[in-house]
């Protein structure tokens, strides 16, 4: 039974720029509340996927229920919600925030406010959170709490006078954080007797329990054995288990208003659980759903192909397994003349793409090649239809296109003064429009609108290199706009290499076409016949390279009568040709295309 009065519950999340100490602080809070014994305590308790721990990012929302005897003599329930901090999962973040009443804003006192701090704090403000600033790492000699306090007020625009100064690492003043949670955050509100309204915060697949749903109860009670209904789909399930995270899963009989916990209900895949959905009781449904459920839509697509064609089925199974646990990831079968059979996959963003790719190779031991990421374009055709384009290779003939729109983002970049010039140049090169430019001390904050297309193409790498790694970057989707976009095809001996075609702004088409042609010239070994490599927009060639015929390839030595050896060699060469792709009279090893794609990064 969890029947803590609402007044003694606090639901909070921690928001921070990467590496500012969110996970360390969470560990300290768990420890201070005695939720885990010394022995059970590992570092970064909440990041339990291997990849999460390694990369220090949180992918799935996590929650832990803490009990804290406050200085006022009362026992409080503190529900900590750990959210994915990255913009790719912005929608998931907003749902997690919607499950809480307040946030700890953790800022590294030696670093100050960063781009991600801002993006997250604005989301928390949107969710009407009470925000408690926490200045972390004050044990460091380089810590400048006073300066950062001021910075928070100037940049973030929230009072920071009573920011809590701590060291999550040494455990200094964790008590101060706990007291602030109790005294400064509002308790949740809710009606115990009203019809059930529970927010579906997240869900994941557990090998033993099946799908586990993370919920926050707004009104009513969620009981074991109850028949519940998903308000967005109408699907009805019987609740098998109700519990809390302590942080280990601990079954309880029911969850009351204001509480956070989990349920299981014999649900097969997480795709049946929409983040942001409202769960109600089938017998006595709520009149209205909680605000805002929207399906998460992939914004970046790319093709994933097994390097070994025999791995195709394994790839299909692995993608299906990943999707069990990640409904925001989409895939459909795709065939490429250059790369064979694979899948076109949709992601919430570049980090999401990178994570999935990494998991496929790491957890499923697949050797994959990814085509260059592409954004989703909107094609308005002359017949009035609108079509979303996930794959540049599918772009129809120019004559049927009335206009094309591309997605834009609003990017926040924070960078030390010294590097601002090169950052502004980079943004301008990428068709960026400056929205805002402000200074905080010797740090500049630039807000730009940029076409997402320009960001998926090596923007991060360039940003990192021109700022020597000092720039921080965050973005949010910012609508669609018409643009002068063209599809550039790469042709080998007049035949298009589908996997290499891409969409670019007309102004960038020639330079990128030239660079791909030059790259292929390096990568394709000389053949019996010369090879023409061209980049073209429609039928107009914008760049070309020629690979001359190989100059010599003949066995000089005489093997006497051993013709069998020659014949076997021929068989082997013919076998090798199975890994080649035919372009007119020449056959090109698939590895050349793979390498071309790899270099695209």
């Amino acid at each position, binding site marked *: 039974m969890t029947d803590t009065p609402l007044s003694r519950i606090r639901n909070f999340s921690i928001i921070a720029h990467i590496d500012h100490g969110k996970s360390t602080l969470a560990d300290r809070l768990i420890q201070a509340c005695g939720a885990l014994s010394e022995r059970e305590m590992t570092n970064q308790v909440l990041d339990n996927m291997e990849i999460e721990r390694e990369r220090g990012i949180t992918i799935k929302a996590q929650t832990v229920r803490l009990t804290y005897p406050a200085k006022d003599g009362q026992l409080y329930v503190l529900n900590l919600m750990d959210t994915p901090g990255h913009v790719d999962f912005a929608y998931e973040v907003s749902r997690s925030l919607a499950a809480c009443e307040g946030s700890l804003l953790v800022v590294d006192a030696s670093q100050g406010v960063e781009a991600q701090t801002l993006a997250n704090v604005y989301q928390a403000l949107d969710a009407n959170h009470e925000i408690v600033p926490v200045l972390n790492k004050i044990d460091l000699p380089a810590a400048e709490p006073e300066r950062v306090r001021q910075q928070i007020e100037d940049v973030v625009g929230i009072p920071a006078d009573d920011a809590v100064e701590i060291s999550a690492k040494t455990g200094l003043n964790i008590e101060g954080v706990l007291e602030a949670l109790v005294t400064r955050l509002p308790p949740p509100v809710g009606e115990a007797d009203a019809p059930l309204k529970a927010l579906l915060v997240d869900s994941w697949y557990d090998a033993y329990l099946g799908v586990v749903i993370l919920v926050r109860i707004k009104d009513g009670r969620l009981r074991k054995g109850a028949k519940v209904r998903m308000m967005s789909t109408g699907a009805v399930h019987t609740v098998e288990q109700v519990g809390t995270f302590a942080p280990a899963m601990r079954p309880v009989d029911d969850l009351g208003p204001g509480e956070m916990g989990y349920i299981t209900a014999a649900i097969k895949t997480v795709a049946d659980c929409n983040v942001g959905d409202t769960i109600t009781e089938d017998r006595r449904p709520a009149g209205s759903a909680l605000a805002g459920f929207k399906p998460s839509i992939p914004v970046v697509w790319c093709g994933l192909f097994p390097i070994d064609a025999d791995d195709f089925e394994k790839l299909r199974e692995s993608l299906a397994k990943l999707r069990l646990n990640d409904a925001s990831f989409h895939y459909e079968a795709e065939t490429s003349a250059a790369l064979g059979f694979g899948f076109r996959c949709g992601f919430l963003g570049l980090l999401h793409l990178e994570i999935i790719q990494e998991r496929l190779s790491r957890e499923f031991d697949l050797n994959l090649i990814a085509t260059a990421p592409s954004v989703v374009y909107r094609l308005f055709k002359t017949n009035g239809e609108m079509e979303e384009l996930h794959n540049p290779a599918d772009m129809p003939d120019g004559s049927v296109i009335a206009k094309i729109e591309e997605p834009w983002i609003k990017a926040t970049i924070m960078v030390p003064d010294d590097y601002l010039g090169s950052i502004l140049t980079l943004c301008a090169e990428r068709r960026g429009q400056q929205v805002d430019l402000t200074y905080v001390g010797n740090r500049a904050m630039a807000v730009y609108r940029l076409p997402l297309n320009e960001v998926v193409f090596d923007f991060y790498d360039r940003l990192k290199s021109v700022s020597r790694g000092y720039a921080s970057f965050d973005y949010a989707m910012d609508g669609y706009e018409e643009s002068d976009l063209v599809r550039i095809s790469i042709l080998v001996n007049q035949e298009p290499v589908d996997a290499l075609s891409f969409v670019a702004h007309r102004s960038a088409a020639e330079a990128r076409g030239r660079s791909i042609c030059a790259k292929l010239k390096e990568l394709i070994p000389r*053949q*019996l*016949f010369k090879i023409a490599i061209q980049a073209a927009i429609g039928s107009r060639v914008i760049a070309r390279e020629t690979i001359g*015929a*190989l*100059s*010599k*390839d*003949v*066995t*000089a*030595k*005489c093997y*006497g*009568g*051993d*013709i*069998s050896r*020659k*014949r076997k060699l*021929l068989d082997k*060469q*013919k076998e090798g*040709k199975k890994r080649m792709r035919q372009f007119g*009279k020449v*056959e090109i090893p698939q590895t050349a295309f793979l390498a071309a794609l790899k270099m695209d990064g």
Partner: protein
Amino acid sequence: MLPDPDDIAAAGAPEPIALYLHWPFCLAKCPYCDFNSHVRERIPAGRFVAALRRELRHEAARIGRRPLASIFFGGGTPSLMPPEGVAALIADARGLFEPRPDLEITLEANPTSVETGRLRAFREAGVNRVSMGIQSLDDDALRRLGREHSAADAVRALEQARAIFPRLSFDLIYARPGQTLAGWRAELDRALALAADHLSLYQLTVEPGTRFEAEHRAGRLLLPPDELGAALYTETAAVAARHGLEAYEVSNYARPGAESRHNLAYWRYGDYAGIGPGAHGRLSLADADGIRRLFATRRHRAPEPWAERVERDGTGLRSQERLDAPDPAREMLLMGLRLREGIDSRRFRARTGTALLDAVDPAMLEACLEEGYLRWQPRSGASAGGGLVGGGPALGRNDWHDHCLAATDEGRLRLDALLPVLVR
């Protein structure tokens, strides 16, 4: 003039035999060599001559008394054979087959003094052509090739051989590490002045399992880049032509008429019997159903186990594989396009049972004709010099069977890349 291939394939006449005899011993193993050659403290010459004679008799019995066009003593180093052994084997072969009046009998010789001393005895045994393994006329290069002789030894051996044998050939290896175009031109000019009627000029090949391969892999042996290799090859043909030697095969150069008839049998995909350890053969034999079919034969490779089998069973045959379509056609293409004269389409059909046009990929044939890698040319005889039929368009669909399909100079230079795409 080359012997007319029609001669060989004349309707009804039995295929003549080219006889290869393998001597598997050398004084030392050269670091580039992957031939079936072995070093023994004492070469068991008597035993191996006896075994060769026995296996020859065994093989001849099933081949029958066919015309004998050539005998080739290869190795290894057959000049280490006792001349009486060579004489006995030649006499055996003459008795077991029907020797042609112009029977060519070649022996591979190394230019070390041990062996050159025997040259006259080999001539008396019946050898009428010597192929000398000179490899280089540069002492440094010879050392790096691990050879046991000097350039002076080589020249002396060649001069002796020229005085003794009516026909003389020698081998050189070029495209060696560090070799320049000018250096090779000079070396080749000197070699050609030694007045052989035939030369085998091989570009150095790094073979698996050799010491050169290990060095190559370790980066200690750097072969010339392809462009230089191509230039060396082209220059070789030009220099040889200036001295009246024509490139009749990828690596073989001869005064017209002085071509190696024995090696031509391989390239024209004729019948040849291989006797001795590791020897290969291609023989048309009557199958169980009485129909003549082509067989590939292979013998045990290790010398002593081969000899044991011969002593026990009369033969060291390791395997005999019937070659069914498309293998004969593929093999004939692999070999025939190495020849400047190309492949006679009539003989191709008669020999393989497949029409030449059905054995190649039509699109690739077209592309190679267009690119000037291949051409159709009139059958034999007329092949020397220019005046050749050009690419595909010049030749009607019905004319091709009167012609030979040949690789051009450019095509031969790229044969290993061309064959896998051309051959079906």
